[in-house]
């Protein structure tokens, strides 16, 4: 039996519970929509402009840096698991691996790209 089936069950049940709760709410709660109620909430004033505002490029950069380190971690997890049985060379390889990426982080930092401004 594939162990992932359990995981799938957890996910299914994990989805069923909120769905059930929301459905319960949908059944039990009143429904009296009107345009004012359904307008978007903007601190109580009239909605101004479009909801889609232009975003800072920093969002992209953070996500990008995160992506890179995420992939890095993917490589490092097998390394870490096996580290106890491997020699020093493996540690050094890992350190080189990390250091190379830290260079990227430093680059981004030194270029001021990690600042929120």
């Amino acid at each position, binding site marked *: 039996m594939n162990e992932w089936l359990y995981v799938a069950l957890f996910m299914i049940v994990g989805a069923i519970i909120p769905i059930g709760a929301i459905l319960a709410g949908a059944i039990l709660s009143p429904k009296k929509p009107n345009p004012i109620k359904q307008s978007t909430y903007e601190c109580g004033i009239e909605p101004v402009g479009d909801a*889609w505002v232009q*975003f800072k490029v920093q969002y*992209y950069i953070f996500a990008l840096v995160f992506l890179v380190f995420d992939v890095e971690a993917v*490589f490092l997890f097998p390394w870490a698991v096996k580290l106890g*049985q491997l020699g020093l060379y493996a540690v050094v390889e890992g350190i080189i691996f990390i250091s*190379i*990426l830290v260079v990227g982080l430093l680059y981004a930092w030194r270029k001021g*790209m990690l600042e929120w401004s």
Partner: protein
Amino acid sequence: MTPEKIIFLIVAGATLVSALMVVTTRNIVHAAFWLIAALFGVAAIFAILNAGFIAVVQVVVYIGAIAILFIFAVMLTRKDLRDTSAQQNRNWQAGALIAALTFGGLAALFQSWEKLSVAAPAIPSSFDAVAELGSQLTSPSAYVLPFEVASVLLLAAMIGAVYIAFTRK
């Protein structure tokens, strides 16, 4: 038809449908979310293939990071995100033809290959794929070079992308 096959077919079907939605839906944001669904399906395929690590990594990397990157990029490049004008270019028929040809060609190739129906070998009970991966990735006689090169690749991508995307006023 074993339960396994049924599950596979369901997952594969859902994945392919999601994939089709990715390439056909007009709303680019929806396309991104459909992509997530498709990638999740692929993760499930990996799980069915007993490649648990790859499956989790698929979720972590694709859904946790790449998809978010896509969504951010979409947000950054649209003035109106509900833009639902035609998303296909003029050559789409030619593209479809080529795609169909590709699939046909591949299918034809599969047909002529006799090992297609081999059974998957049993996985030894003591086999730990992650640990094995760890030792292979660091062993000088195996894949240490790809391992290190991957970090250089990521470094290059990061520096390049950061440099390109970021222009100070």
